[in-house]
């Protein structure tokens, strides 16, 4: 039985799709599907949902590293078997949720989670929940920084905001380790983004065998990659490309299309900080995160510059913003010039857009605030 390499098509099953979700519902979820009336966060990390039938579902949310071993998953299972009838769920922000059907089951669950030491309860309401992130140096070929290590360092420092609800609103932090943004950080309250700063190298020895040169040329959004002859280390002239360096914006799309054009570099790579994005339509429309710190160096294992930058922005916001205001709503209300001043972040020309649609971000009014930037 099992897979037979001699006969790979025998009894093959394909296109069955994911298992049906309903079989994984805890009884209280199944019985009250579509009947929920309201919810409340009874303490940080603990929610209660109340059904029109009177049933209650208590949810305990814990942070998770996302990069986890099967033994860690088994630890979660053990908790779920003991307290939650053998069911659990994961959130889109890599948290784990344990659900029980009565209030008296909450404390024993919390006690067991506390005993484990790797299962912090929190991530609800006006706090910092888990950081959505990408693979980084653990498993990706295009990163400009690590992901799991930076997240660990930042969350260690922001931990009290994970386990409490003291901020003006929820703050969504996200990390993407390159501009491809598998983590889609472009609409986050605070985005940590891996960036390259050196143009691609061109490996003439292999380019004609590992790349489709027309695709490499077409990959550049600014037309900086052009066809050219190249010389291999053995002196052979081959079809290759050249890069107009002053046109390169270091997006890395050429490397994605062509392995012979690597641009990662220990000094060139690092982290940019973008702030003020949001997804929810509540009050104001969804918005993009804006680049406020163009570059911080890669300083493993704990990236102190990045950690300090994120914490600074978070704490200035926490002090200054109104209740319910997201980071971007706060920055827009006080004005971005005030944002830079209050956060003590130097404004550089690199925060002025010069890509497509840049003009939409230029100020076309006499309305501005006097800050220390005006001498």
């Amino acid at each position, binding site marked *: 039985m*099992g897979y037979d390499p001699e006969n790979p098509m025998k009894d093959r099953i394909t296109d069955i799709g*994911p*298992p049906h*979700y309903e079989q*994984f519902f805890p009884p209280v979820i199944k019985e009250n599907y579509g009947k929920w009336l309201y919810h409340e966060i009874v303490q940080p990390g603990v929610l209660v949902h109340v059904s029109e039938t009177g049933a209650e579902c208590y949810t305990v949310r814990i942070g998770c590293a996302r990069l986890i071993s*099967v033994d860690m998953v088994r630890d979660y299972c053990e908790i779920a078997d003991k307290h939650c009838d053998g069911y659990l*769920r994961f959130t889109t922000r890599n948290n784990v949720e344990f659900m029980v059907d009565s209030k008296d089951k909450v404390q024993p669950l919390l006690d067991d989670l506390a005993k484990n030491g790797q299962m912090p309860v929190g991530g609800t309401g006006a706090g910092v929940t888990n950081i959505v992130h990408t693979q980084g140096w653990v498993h990706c*070929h*295009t990163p400009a920084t690590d992901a799991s290590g930076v997240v660990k360092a930042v969350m260690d420092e922001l931990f009290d905001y994970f386990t409490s609800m003291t901020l003006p609103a929820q703050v969504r932090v996200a990390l993407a380790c390159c501009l*491809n943004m598998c983590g889609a950080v472009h609409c986050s309250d605070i985005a940590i983004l891996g960036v390259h700063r050196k143009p691609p190298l061109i490996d003439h020895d292999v380019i004609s065998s590992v790349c489709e040169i027309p695709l490499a040329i077409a990959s550049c959004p600014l037309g900086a990659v052009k066809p050219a002859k190249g010389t291999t280390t053995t002196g052979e002239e081959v079809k290759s490309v050249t890069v107009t360096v002053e046109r390169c914006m270091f997006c890395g799309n050429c490397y994605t299309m062509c392995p012979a054009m690597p641009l990662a570099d220990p000094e060139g790579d690092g982290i940019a900080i973008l702030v003020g994005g949001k997804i929810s339509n509540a009050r104001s429309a969804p918005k993009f995160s804006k680049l406020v710190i163009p570059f911080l160096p890669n300083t493993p294992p704990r990236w102190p510059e990045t950690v300090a930058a994120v914490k600074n922005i978070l704490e200035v916001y926490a002090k200054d913003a109104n209740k319910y205001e997201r980071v971007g709503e706060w920055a827009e209300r006080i004005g971005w010039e005030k944002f830079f001043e209050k956060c003590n972040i130097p404004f550089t020309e690199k925060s002025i857009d010069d890509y497509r649609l840049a003009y939409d971000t230029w100020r076309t009014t006499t309305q501005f605030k006097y800050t220390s930037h005006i001498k």
Partner: protein
Amino acid sequence: MPKHDTPLLDQLESGPWPSFVSDLKRMAQKKDECWDILGQVELSYKDKITHWKHGGIVGVFGYGGGVIGRYSDVPTRFPGVAHFHTVRLNQPSSKFYSTAILRQICDMWERRGSGMTNFHGSTGDLVLLGTTTDQLEEIFWECTHDLGMDLGGSGGNLRTPSCCLGKARCEWSCYDTQAACHNITMTYQDELHRPAFPYKFKTKFSGCPNDCVAAIARSDFAVIGNWRDDIRIDQAAVKGYVNGDHAANGGAHSGRDWGKFDIQKEVIDLCPTGCMWMEGDALKIDNAECTRCMHCINVLPRALRPGKDQGASILIGAKAPILDGAQIATLVIPFCKMDPENEFEEYKDLLEKCWDWWMEHGKNRERIGESMQRIGLNNFLSIIEVEPIPQHVKEPRSNPYVFWKDEEVEGGFERDVKEFRKRHAM
């Protein structure tokens, strides 16, 4: 006994947040390749650069995606990760699991892979990190035969759809996001497993405009729950909030003393359309002016609920920056029903119109949002047979450069310059 010294990574074992380093070390006691992950990542921490090679095409018979080839560029030093492919498994809708299935997945992955995972990948898949090419068919066999699971998407195909938890545990979901996500995933298995698109295509299902799966920012085809009648009000509960009997915003602000709840300041004044007011103890809403932003409902969950005539808005074209810059999705269908009874027919009709056009006219590695920008929203709407309405724009254009068509202008474009000159000398 550590196989490699990891002085840099060891510094990530302290601190209150769960440590992936401690977890890897624990797994390394059973799975030697986890030592090589630690060793190679330590080298990256020292060198400040990745040590994974570019790509490599691997997969299972008959599928064009779901497995991502991954090879170390220092295989002799870290032979356990020389070949270290990623397997994406399509997660069940909104990521509920039984411990039984999780334990089965864990056992399989400990036997056939590194034992390391991502719960979950950014798109939503359950990601299994690190196996060798010879294991791939075995893994696929066990997944499909024993676990009842299948691979997710990768490459130029329909990426694994995902959804919020919807009606399972939320009072605001305006349609059954889980049913929609599952049904649509099952309908388009071929598009999911066999890349035939110009580039990736993501669809995500959120139950209300709070958009917990970030559909509006992250999916080419975003379905966000919405309603078109009046917000339901329980005036007794409104009074309860005003009197301080219930915690506002579901208790989300209870960690700081923000003073007594003030419905005028915290709800009515923050309404973006100013369509709410108090008449005595009663909260009044001019629903015709409401844009359903969710703020008042978020703050007063016991008192306010979305209306009963529920469905969804469809927005198209979100993406991250590569290449033409990030895009938030554009509203195309203000309101439609998302009806399991008719198999989500309205959604599928529109989706297939978009695909038919994009597969023919989209350029290589062009997301549909970029194709839309290239041809213009007006042309795109005409292609997918949607009548243009003011809801499609924030404001009308401010330039007069209209691309009038020959047939739209009286007499057409064809004219005779000689006739013109008879009346207008040079």
